[in-house]
């Protein structure tokens, strides 16, 4: 008997639920549609400029002659130096925090500090890099200054990711090593790190893939508008792929916009490769304990 009273409101409630579910699904569809449109727009504009010549020529005032050679090589140099700087320090800091640091307020401050640094806008790192590396330490507008700045930018992320990887190593492994008389460092070096390494590498590769797309800090360090040569030493001036994209996008001619789109395609391919590598490493070497 009370079923009749419930039925209409039940119908209404179910209908509201269906509408809501459709809305939520629409949100997800929105994201997917936007991504597809963005990629389609970039491909449509830039595909015609992609060629081996595009990769091997230097930028030029004439669109038909322009290429991204100095930008790609600059980005590679930047990645190499950034990795060389941030990987050891990031992993070192993570090892310290997980294995050595006493559980005091000082360590907690260190931890919070790292979390806060991860949220600082990249342009503030650019300001820091400009003041310290370009001016104070006198490295000038060079690859080295840029790499150190980007290194500081991604350091918090590497530390956090490495900490997670080290935390995941079971205590039993450490205990076993101590049990046969290993010192702390021996344990870490021969037992903890090898197991944590795939996770650490994944985190590092993902951080580097973020660094390769960074523009703002490097503009502050030294975006000269015209660079038609690759760096041959860390103290050389440079340009990177995102800065080249920025320069071309800011020009009024449609041809340069299309060149920018082609450069974007190259950048996206590199990013995709790096992310695929990171995921491959993570999946392949995940459960080895």
């Amino acid at each position: 008997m009370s079923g009749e009273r419930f039925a209409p409101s039940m119908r209404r409630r179910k209908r509201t639920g269906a509408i809501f579910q459709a809305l939520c699904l629409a949100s997800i569809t929105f994201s997917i549609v936007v991504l597809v449109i963005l990629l389609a727009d970039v491909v449509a504009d830039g595909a015609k400029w992609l060629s081996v010549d595009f990769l091997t020529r230097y930028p030029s005032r004439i669109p038909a002659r322009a290429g991204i050679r100095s930008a790609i090589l600059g980005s590679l140099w930047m990645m190499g130096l950034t990795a060389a700087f941030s990987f050891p320090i990031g992993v070192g800091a993570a090892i310290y925090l997980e294995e050595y640091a006493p559980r005091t307020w000082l360590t907690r401050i260190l931890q919070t500090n790292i979390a806060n640094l991860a949220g600082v806008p990249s342009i503030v790192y650019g300001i820091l890099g400009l003041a310290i590396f370009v001016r104070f330490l006198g490295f000038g507008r060079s690859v080295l200054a840029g790499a150190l700045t980007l290194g500081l930018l991604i350091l918090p992320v590497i530390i956090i990711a490495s900490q997670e990887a080290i935390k995941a190593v079971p205590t039993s492994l450490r205990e076993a090593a101590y049990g046969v008389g290993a010192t702390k460092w021996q344990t870490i070096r021969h037992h903890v790190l090898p197991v944590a390494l795939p996770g650490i590498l994944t985190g590092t590769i993902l951080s580097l893939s973020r660094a390769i797309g960074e523009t703002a800090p490097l503009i502050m360090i030294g975006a000269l508008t015209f660079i038609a040569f690759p760096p041959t030493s860390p103290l050389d001036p440079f340009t990177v792929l995102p800065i080249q994209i920025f320069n071309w996008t800011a020009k009024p001619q449609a041809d340069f916009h299309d060149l920018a789109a082609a450069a974007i395609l190259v950048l996206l391919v590199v990013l995709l490769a790096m992310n695929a590598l990171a995921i491959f490493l993570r999946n392949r070497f995940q459960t080895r304990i």
Partner: protein
Amino acid sequence: MSGRTTAWTALTAMIAVLPLLACGGGGDAGAGGLTGSVAIDGSSTVFPISEAVAEEFQIANPGVRVTVGISGTGGGFKKFCAGETDISDASRPIKETEIEACAANGIEPIQLSVAWDGLTVVRNPANDWATCMTVDELKRVWQPGSSITRWSEVRPDWPDTEIELYGPDTDSGTFDYFTEAIVGEEDASRDDYTASADDNVLVVGVEGDAGSLGYFGFAYYEESADKLGAVAVDNGAGCVLPSRETIESGTYAPLSRPMFIYVKPDALARPEVRAFVDFYIENAPTLVPEVGYVPLTEGQYAEQLAKVATP
């Protein structure tokens, strides 16, 4: 292979490959035999010429690395006098204060004229009313404290649409020159417009807004002439549009102006810099018109070369 070994191998391979790739593109001396670097900075108006010269020069001399920046005429001089650059692009002559700053560092700048520019006042193509403006009208729009925000305030019979203003920022020689020539006093300008050191931003801005008004170097107008309209300037002798002829003859007044590069003896002592400067002047007759400016006469270019000839 264990996970650890593979991981280490992957990491090492990644880092090892980088310098190899970089070395592959390294600068070798090549045919020219010249090596070294040339640092140029300064005016964004002169930039297209310097960029073109730098590009052609580096193709001929792959061992030399030329960088060109756009810090603005004023910014360029500051770096030049501080010894940070070898050549300074300038769209106005060097000021007394700048000469003194250079002298304080033992630098004596040598002025070389490279081209003529007709500073162009631009409008959007949809703007079919402001095809000609007098110097006085321009002054009223651009002077400091100007409250003109609509076209009808300039001339009553013009539409009542908003004026969107675009122009260079204060480090720019174009800014200095325009304010001096139009407003009557250097650096005297209203400040509520879109100011950018990057002329491309100004071109995009004027192209996009129907009621816009802006000013920049002739080359930037030429490059996008199909999307921009020029405003003829009436200096009392009738409306004159900027063009090769009017700029060369000086009838496009008061906005025809010479453009310079400044060099210094210590830099010229380096073979790559000397070669670059010679290349600049020698190739100016072809590159300057290609970029969109007006070249000097053969004789005038020869005079410039004489200024830097080794004694």
